[in-house]
């Protein structure tokens, strides 16, 4: 069956360091992958989309990679700040139908 895995353990890092979150998937061949941020008590907010023919995408301090051979995406936040503390969700396109399948998310904690 199709499956998306994100590290369920919280990632705890020091301010200024680079945070790296992982998203692995099986039994998919998605045309694109997305990353969302979710703060407690709020809905997810879109951050970045990367397509299958793109190796890397950047937006300000954010960088996403997409390795379709490894079936993995890495999400990096450079020069992390306490305000980056949140849960980060990856999502894959399903069946070319504007439907998404979400991972369960990884919580990031950035210590001052």
């Amino acid at each position: 069956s199709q499956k998306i895995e994100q590290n369920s353990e919280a990632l705890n890092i020091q301010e200024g360091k680079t945070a790296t979150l992982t998203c692995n998937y099986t039994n998919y061949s998605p045309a694109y992958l997305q990353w969302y941020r979710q703060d407690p008590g709020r809905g997810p907010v879109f951050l970045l989309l990367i397509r299958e023919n793109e190796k890397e995408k950047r937006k300000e301090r954010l960088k996403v990679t997409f390795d379709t051979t490894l079936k993995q995406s890495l999400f990096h936040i450079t020069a992390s700040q306490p305000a980056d503390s949140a849960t980060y969700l990856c999502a894959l396109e399903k069946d070319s139908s504007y439907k998404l399948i979400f991972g369960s998310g990884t919580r990031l904690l950035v210590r001052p």
Partner: protein
Amino acid sequence: DAGITQSPRHKVTETGTPVTLRCHQTENHRYMYWYRQDPGHGLRLIHYSYGVKDTDKGEVSDGYSVSRSKTEDFLLTLESATSSQTSVYFCAINPGQGAQETQYFGPGTRLLVL
């Protein structure tokens, strides 16, 4: 929240009662979605709509029905609420054209079924 509102924001109900949650958008987007979010499961798609009166099931549709009579409104109904339907429910929208695959989420409805 990209012109999306959900109502109510919080609801407590009893097992066996019907419950309707409303999602309203002002973006005129074609696609609308209902998800539930539970610890350890992430967001799971309940139902979605690809136009007025056009809906389809998601991965966890049992016990839920939906209706979309206008572009701006997408209703989720729990016909007879059960404790397993205690969850946080999110509505999302998507324009569904061009290369815009991004979904925009509402603020969520917290439902407790006693």
